[in-house]
């Protein structure tokens, strides 16, 4: 079921509420305020919203300088421009400097749709994950984004938020107990574990239903924080099911599949099948079409689960 709330509007509104109590919070954008629904923040706090214009390197540098003065900046852009375009600035001015900047990269992977290959990052989490101490988080729906904000604010350090902007499939209700860095066991199973993030969570749950009809009992984990990774949860599940499928809207090189493989191979080696983009660039198209092209659909997860079970 599609959510009735957009993730972008939910985050912006949650930031307005948080900023009423915490004057350290500032929001910066690089000429994409309209795309991020942050106008409400600008209206509530005109002096604490800074549009730097189309200059992402300066966006990150200014955010770093504000953080050095004690602010908690949220720096927004489309995911490729919030990461690739200013990677060295994030690496040196933010992470290596130990500064408390939150980076919001929107429209990950196929969500970039009509903006096409130049705007379609399948590598943002891979490169952000390679920065020491960077927390890498992908919200699943609006409820999770809202519930994650207190943890993101409480973390004294850099966080990358890979944010699907619009109305996602609704997975969670108000009963969600969220903890940054702790995966969520959504459905228990015994034959195979599907580890999913972002838009792939709803597909993983659909795949579970299809697998059930074939007599296969799949466990589903939403691994929203790719780094630090919840190794304990992965190992517990791998011991139980003995086979893993990862599902990501991202290149498998350096992405969720890699992260899970890194975590398990050193502790509990387990057969893994990776559903994700197989070293391809993006292109224009609708989410559903692109998901077929890049083999990240529900049926791709089902096939991968069957293969993973055979590898046991």
């Amino acid at each position, binding site marked *: 079921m599609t959510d009735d709330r957009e993730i972008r509007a939910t985050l912006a509104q949650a930031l307005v509420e948080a900023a009423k109590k915490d004057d350290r919070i500032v929001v910066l954008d690089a000429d994409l305020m309209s795309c991020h629904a942050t106008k409400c923040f600008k209206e509530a706090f005109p002096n*604490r919203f800074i549009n730097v*214009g189309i200059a992402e*390197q300066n966006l990150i540098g*200014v955010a770093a*300088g*504000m953080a050095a003065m004690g602010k908690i900046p949220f720096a927004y852009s489309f995911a490729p421009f919030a990461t690739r375009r200013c990677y060295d600035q994030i*690496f040196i*001015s933010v992470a290596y400097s130990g500064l408390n900047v939150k980076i919001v990269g929107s429209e990950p992977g196929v969500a970039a749709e009509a903006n096409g290959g130049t705007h379609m990052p399948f590598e943002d989490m891979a490169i952000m994950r390679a920065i020491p101490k960077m927390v890498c988080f992908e919200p699943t729906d609006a409820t999770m984004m809202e519930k994650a904000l207190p943890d993101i604010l409480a973390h004294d350090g850099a966080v990358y938020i890979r944010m699907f902007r619009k109305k996602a499939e609704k997975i969670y209700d108000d009963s969600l107990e969220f903890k940054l860095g702790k995966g969520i066991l959504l459905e228990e199973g015994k034959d195979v574990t599907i580890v999913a993030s972002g838009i792939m969570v709803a597909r993983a749950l659909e795949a579970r239903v299809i697998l059930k009809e074939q007599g296969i009992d799949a466990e589903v984990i939403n691994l929203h924080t790719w780094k630090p990774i919840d190794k304990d949860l992965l190992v517990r599940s791998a011991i139980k099911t003995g086979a893993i499928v990862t599902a990501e809207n991202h290149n498998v090189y350096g992405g969720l599949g890699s992260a899970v493989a890194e975590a398990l191979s050193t502790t509990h080696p387990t057969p893994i099948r990776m559903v994700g983009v197989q070293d391809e660039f993006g292109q224009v198209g609708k989410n559903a079409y692109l998901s077929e092209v890049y083999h990240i659909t529900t049926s791709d997860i089902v096939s991968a689960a069957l293969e993973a079970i055979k590898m046991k």
Partner: protein
Amino acid sequence: MDSCELQFLTGKARQLRDDAIETIGTFGVGHIGGVMSVMDALTVIYYSKIKNIDCKNPRKADRDRVIMSKGHAGPAMYVVLADLGYFPREWLKTLNKNGTNLPSHCDMNKTPGIDMTAGSLGQGLSAAAGMALAAKLDNNPATIYCFIGDGESQEGQIWEASMFSASHKLNNLIVLLDYNKMQLDGPVAEINDLAPVEKKWEAFGFFVQSVDGHDLEAISNAIDNAKASIDKPSMIVLNTVKGKGASFAEAAKNCHSMSISEEMWRKETGRY
């Protein structure tokens, strides 16, 4: 500036140059050229202009900040900070050695008194602009001083940050360009020319002054003028000589980074 202060600053600048020559010489190699060329302006800032600093509380909220965006001039900062008591002078002997708190490029998490990490050129000015903006939001009286290099000004981010600073009327930001006209591979004018640099900064909305970067009184007056700016950030073009005050560096064809023997630094400083 009275003659007494001028005499004090002149002596201090000489002492700091000798400290830097000894510090880099003790390690054996380093960015002597750009360290020497900024030393007079650093001396004026730290010993005449700077407000609200406290070596016992290096992160005091309302202190003036100094960002050495040309981060390879780290040793120039270190000799000043040691002299002001931020850390023991003995630390200067550890420059760039295993486990040191004084790396070649400035690191805010290693060295007390360093306000921003730098080394990847072009980044410090954006951080300085962010600091100046945050200071204004909080009615913090801090002045933000930022040193940039002429070679560094070939980085596009410098111009992103300059446009932003003027757009936000950051009159609490004073940028000092170390215009020594040489970069690692040779003359700036031959590699990727910066001239006419004053006109460029004026066009980008700055209050621009151009001074002899080794004239302490001229630098002092320029900083006073900059602090009086009502609605513009300031650019002070320091016309400098790379290696100034280290005769072996001034005589070298290119002194961006040089090997310095014990004999060289002892002879230059007269410290035996």
